């Protein structure tokens, strides 16, 4: 059933080796003569491109197998093995991971190429590419890992790299704090993942702790509903951390502190999609407990709503995109939550294209304006940067869910699945969010590219980015345009290639609802899109002044004060507990018995000091007194 191929391990190895090589080169040259940037750029792109080629090879190999036995495995070595716990450093390529593999390496490579231009002139050029390669390598480990533990390696690896890349401009404290936040919040999620893994192991892990064995034993008696629910929810906690869902989404907007290609890499291709991928990977567990799925779906759709609200009021171009990512991730979770795993993954797939496109486009704008990120200082750029403008509009249309574009099909698939499985609430919120998405996306487009330039000085100097940056944009734009067609539903004459491709990997039951439901879903989405874009055009189409927010808008502008709330409720008390332990509890409670013993000796010493008068005869007197007392006692007993 499974076929072993040893080139699987090479796929993550290429970028990882690249990272080590570039990192060492950078470390040893950064304070001396610097290597030319080209060396780093080329070295950095070799790894991802080679991985992409290997991914294609994997795809071809899988394609050549009959659908039900599309598994390629590679056991590199025994990782650790203690008692019942046998963990191999093993890799698994099946349709699901292959799909992820293809677009991760593809988009990752494009972002690397783009970065050659974007990062030009940075003094830590080499460091940047080392981190990027490490990031991609970790993501590939995550995707290819044959079991939860190997996945966890990549899982934490991307967390680390996001920390390193977000705090890349480390001289500025706020950037480093954003990095810290990302790592720590991710770690909270990781705790859930580790605990989930542990419970899963003690239930059914003894016979082998990789996906295929777990899947085979999922109906064991040890796997009660309670255990299943616990495991699913704990794993989902991990997913909320990595994929920025309520309540752990707070790190993602701050992650904009890193260089723009990093944001693209984090948001589009790699890190944030890991949560969705993980839930899909464990679909055989989630399929067993409906409750867990519902929770996932509701958390997802509420995150989508919340992030959309925030997104409508942001002024930083990257923050708008960041909240749109959070929002789209919410959709994906709604999708996998209602057991439409292929729809969720398909949205991951299309989202990777248009979000990478949007971020790289935004990066192009920022690059042209010399690192200006406030949209209220832009405007009228469409004439200056035509390629960027066109590609970004394509991306925006895809994000907003305009019918022929990729985002439409994937989002519609999710909303349709929600409706078809009877989750009307999720569907309704989803439609609402679709409208809001259209609104804030085009608000951004209109403000940045249309109207009159707001900052004339910056406008004068703005120019189209070099080809090394625009070519990836164009490639991604093509992807954003047509990727949706891959999974064309039957109603449009397609045959859902992606869903069928994924079928062997995920455990899902395609709902069969009537054509009416399907048309209702599509219609509602289109209407929501139209309303959203219309409002945006009405308000910002002809150029608009920077608004000042009041009331609810102000509240939303400040992101409902969630960051402040977390700071007050978690961070400050945490620090307060820390310092109270150090300043109050440690000296007065924990150390008190020890100090008490010392004090006891001191007190006894002072008490007995009185007798040490220093006169020899008094010491003699003590002796005689003792003798005398002894004599008294003894003479009692002498008779």
């Amino acid at each position, binding site marked *: 059933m499974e076929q072993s191929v040893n080139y699987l391990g090479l796929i993550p190895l290429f970028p990882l080796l690249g990272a080590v090589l570039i990192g060492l080169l950078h470390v040893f040259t950064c304070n001396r003569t610097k290597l030319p940037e080209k060396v780093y750029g080329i070295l950095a792109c070799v790894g991802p491109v080679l991985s992409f080629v290997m991914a294609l090879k994997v795809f071809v190999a899988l394609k050549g197998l009959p659908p039900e036995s599309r598994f390629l495995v590679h056991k590199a070595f025994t990782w650790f093995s203690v008692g019942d716990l046998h963990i191999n450093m093993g890799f698994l390529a099946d349709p699901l991971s292959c799909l992820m593999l293809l677009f991760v390496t593809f988009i990752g490579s494009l972002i690397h190429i783009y970065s050659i231009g974007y990062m030009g002139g940075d003094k830590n050029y080499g460091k940047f590419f080392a981190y990027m390669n490490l990031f991609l390598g970790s993501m590939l480990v995550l995707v290819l890992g044959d079991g939860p533990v190997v996945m966890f390696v990549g899982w934490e690896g991307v967390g680390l790299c996001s920390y390193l890349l977000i705090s890349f401009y480390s001289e500025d404290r706020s950037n480093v704090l954003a990095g810290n936040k990302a790592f720590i919040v991710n770690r909270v999620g990781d705790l859930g993942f580790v605990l989930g893994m542990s419970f899963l192991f003690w239930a059914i892990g003894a016979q082998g702790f990789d996906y295929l064995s777990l899947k085979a034993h999922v109906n064991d008696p040890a796997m009660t509903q309670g255990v299943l629910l616990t495991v699913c929810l704990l794993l989902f906690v991990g997913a909320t951390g990595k994929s920025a869902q309520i309540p752990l989404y707070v790190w993602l907007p701050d992650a904009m502190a890193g260089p723009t290609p990093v944001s693209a890499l984090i948001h589009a291709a790699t890190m944030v999609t890991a949560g969705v991928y993980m839930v899909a990977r464990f679909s055989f567990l989630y399929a067993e407990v409906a409750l867990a799925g519902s929770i996932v779906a509701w958390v997802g759709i509420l995150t989508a709503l919340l992030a959309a609200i925030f997104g409508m009021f942001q002024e930083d171009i990257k923050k708008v995109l960041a909240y749109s990512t959070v929002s789209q991730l919410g959709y994906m979770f709604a999708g996998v939550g209602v057991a439409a795993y292929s729809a969720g993954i398909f949205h991951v797939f299309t989202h990777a294209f248009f979000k990478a496109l949007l971020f790289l486009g935004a990066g192009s704008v920022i690059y042209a304006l010399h690192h200006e990120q406030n949209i209220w200082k832009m405007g009228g750029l469409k004439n200056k940067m035509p390629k960027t403008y066109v590609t970004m509009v394509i991306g925006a249309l895809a994000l907003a869910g305009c019918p022929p574009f990729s985002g439409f099909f994937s989002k519609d698939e999710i909303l349709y699945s929600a409706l078809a499985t009877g989750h009307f609430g999720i569907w309704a919120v989803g439609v609402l969010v679709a409208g809001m998405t259209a609104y804030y996306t085009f608000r951004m487009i209109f403000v940045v590219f249309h109207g009159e330039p707001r900052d004339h000085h910056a406008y004068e100097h703005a120019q189209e980015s070099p080809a090394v940056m625009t070519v990836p944009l164009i490639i991604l734009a093509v992807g954003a345009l047509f990727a949706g067609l891959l999974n064309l539903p039957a109603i449009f004459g397609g045959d859902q290639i992606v869903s069928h491709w994924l079928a062997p990997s995920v455990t899902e039951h395609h709902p069969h609802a009537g054509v009416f439901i399907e048309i209702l879903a599509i219609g509602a989405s289109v209407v929501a899109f139209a309303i959203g874009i219309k409002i945006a055009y009405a308000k910002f189409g002809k150029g608009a002044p920077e608004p000042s927010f009041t009331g609810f808008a102000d509240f939303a502008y400040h992101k409902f004060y969630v960051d402040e709330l977390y700071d007050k409720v978690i961070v400050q008390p945490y620090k307060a507990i820390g310092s109270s332990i150090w300043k109050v509890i440690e000296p007065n409670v924990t150390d008190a018995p020890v100090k008490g013993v010392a004090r006891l000796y001191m007190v006894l010493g002072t008490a007995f000091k009185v007798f040490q008068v220093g006169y020899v005869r008094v010491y*003699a007197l003590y002796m005689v007194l003792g003798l005398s007392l002894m004599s008294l006692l003894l003479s009692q007993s002498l008779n």
Partner: protein
Amino acid sequence: MMHCYLYLSIILFCLGIVGVIARRNVFTVFMSVELMLNAANLAFITFSRVHESMDGHVLAMMVMAVAAAEAALALAVVILLHKHKSKLDTNVFSLLKG
């Protein structure tokens, strides 16, 4: 008769103790110690006579030798102290005071 000797020995011994603890003059204290040694010697000799064995005599000689050694050292110390403080008061020397 033996009892009488021993009672005398006890009386002398007790007087020696009183001398040590009640007086502050270094010489008196020192001689009181000697007095206690002599009281012990008397008891040795008495018992030696009673048992008609001369081991007690040997011990008495030892005690005398020790007393002599002690006298030499003690007097050297007294001289030293007198040089230091020109006092013969034991209360002056209270370095052990806590």
